[in-house]
């Protein structure tokens, strides 16, 4: 329990790392992103999309937090708000203990080196008119790393080999690579600045299953080697289980359950997490399971339901769920869930 702060949301301990005095690599408190809905010729704001509605978590050095949820729950928005690709509405983002939430674009630049992102689509995330070597070398030249062009090229070559590409492929264009290779280029680009934290925005969702495993193993190797921290955004529970230390489950812009991987998979506390896990296919046709199948669709984030966001689909919902929003509270040590009825 190294990072106990004033909010109880941040009390999940790093799963197996020993307690140190170092601040967490990333600390996010009550992050919100509301998109205005504009209408009419005067573009008056008629409503808000509550894409991310108060999300808090911490990531320690060498640790992976898996952020899961179905599409539209706001998990990608969290990643983009962290990278300041979109401006968060409110909340704080602390990188290595330093508040970077309100820095201007210019002030933010040095922090870019510590936080990078790998995108989902390996086809649109690389500039089609640049060679692979230039793409990977761009962060180096922008941040003035390496003294000469030759030295930078040398560094790019090393990065290429590290992610499993050949040096000779540096002068090829993105369209000459396969999807998996392109994603490796994306990883090399993210690694170029030697960041502490890498946000993976569904980095393997667009790849074949066999390639997914290779890319994930590469990410795991890099983590072990460089003490990298990952925020791994995905909708694929199997992938998240493989790579994460901790998992946060999101539903309609809020975290509904937040615990170590083991706790989530062994004894989920929130009904939504239970439903997600029971939807995961098991390769055993004879196995009988108590399936928890949800009815209906995710409500619109423009008008999220009052009280618990999940009550419209929750089989256990009662009156209190329609009135009061349940806080994220500790159910068992280190396991937090936002449900009125969750018990140890």
């Amino acid at each position, binding site marked *: 329990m190294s990072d106990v702060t004033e909010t109880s949301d941040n009390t999940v301990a790093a799963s197996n790392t020993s307690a140190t005095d170092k601040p967490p690599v990333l600390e996010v408190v009550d992050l919100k992103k509301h998109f205005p809905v504009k209408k009419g010729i005067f573009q008056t704001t008629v409503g808000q999309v509550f894409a991310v509605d108060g999300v808090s978590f911490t990531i320690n050095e060498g640790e992976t937090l898996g952020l899961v949820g179905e599409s539209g729950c706001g998990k990608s928005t969290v990643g*983009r708000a962290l*990278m300041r690709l979109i401006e968060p509405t409110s909340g704080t983002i602390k990188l290595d203990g330093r508040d970077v939430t309100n820095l201007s674009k210019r002030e933010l630049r040095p922090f870019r080196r510590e936080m*990078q992102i790998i*995108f989902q689509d390996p086809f649109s*995330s*690389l*500039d089609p008119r640049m060679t692979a070597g230039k793409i990977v070398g761009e962060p180096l030249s922008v941040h003035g790393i390496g003294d000469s062009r030759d030295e930078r090229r040398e560094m790019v070559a090393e990065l290429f080999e590290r992610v499993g590409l050949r040096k000779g492929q540096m002068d090829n264009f993105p369209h000459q690579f396969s999807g998996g290779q392109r994603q490796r280029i994306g990883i090399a680009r993210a690694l170029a600045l030697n960041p502490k934290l890498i946000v993976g925005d569904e980095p393997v969702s667009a790849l074949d299953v066999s390639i997914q495993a290779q890319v994930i193993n590469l990410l795991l190797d890099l983590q072990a080697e460089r003490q990298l921290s990952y925020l791994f955004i995905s909708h694929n529970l199997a992938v998240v289980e493989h790579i994460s230390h901790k998992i946060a489950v999101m539903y309609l812009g809020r975290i509904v359950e937040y615990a170590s991987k083991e706790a989530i998979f062994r004894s989920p506390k929130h009904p939504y997490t239970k439903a997600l896990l029971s939807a995961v296919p098991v390769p055993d046709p004879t196995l009988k399971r108590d399936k928890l199948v949800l009815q209906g669709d995710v409500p619109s984030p423009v008008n999220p339901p009052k009280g618990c966001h999940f009550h419209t689909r929750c089989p256990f919902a009662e009156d209190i769920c329609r009135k009061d929003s349940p806080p994220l509270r500790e159910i068992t040590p280190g396991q937090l869930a936002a449900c009125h009825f969750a018990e140890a």
Partner: protein
Amino acid sequence: MLDEKTAAKAPSGFVHRFMDSDLVYSFLRSPVVVISFIITALYFLSAAFAPWIAPHNPFDPASLDLMEAFTPPAWTADGSMKFILGTDDQGRDILSTLIFGSRISLIVGFSAVLFSVVLGVGLGLLAGYAGGWAETIVMRFADVQLTIPAILVALMIDGIARIIVPVELRDEMSIYVLILAIGVSDWPRYARVTRGATLVERNKEYVSAARVIGVHPIKIMFQHVLPNVMGPVLVMGTIGLALAIITEATLSFLGVGVPPTQPSLGTLIRVGNNFLFSGEWWITLFPSLALVILVLAVNLLGDWLRDALNPRLR
């Protein structure tokens, strides 16, 4: 597999890769396009080397002989082999004025397209990438200008320039005024296309990646977005060249273009037009034909380029 194959086939780099490309393949497969290309290339070459190619120098008063005025083309009864396409009212060789006229037309057309591409692409890129007020101002301006026919805009600019430029400089400046007028009259088309393409590219993840790295927005615009929106602009520019040549000819025909001492195809057509009813048809027919062939060839090239670069029509 594929990588190794192409690598083995094209070891010597760019030239081989270029000759192997889809573009060259579709070019060589269409005879119309090859002919259009040859014609356009001939125009450009004859424009570049006009003083050496033209049989006479039509702008050297010493070489002109009024006795030779109105000589019909060589194959007619009164024609002479000295003037293959005949002479005009001042005894100038039509073929030579044609070659020099095409040169002026091409220079004006090309420079005007370049001008409107730079202006239109720059403003379109800004509007598409920055959005907000910049976009509103640029695009409303473009919309308003598009409600006025381009030729009227060009006439207006030409008129204003005539007021500003002192009389003694008018002939000298007229070619620049013409380039400016045609260029300004045509930029909204490029701005629109560029803005549209920029809006698409801006939301691609490679732009986000550049932002996350900390690349300056201006650099993102020019290094990442611009090369990816140039495809449609190139096609429009080719078709725009034909349009600019026609606009130039129209302005010159109306008498507001280049002066008769430095005639373009449009000027030649206008001058010849005066003699059409008195029987000297060759003075206006050959410049007109030259204009039609040039515009047609450039247009066909542009059409082909549009199809060849359009991935949906492949």
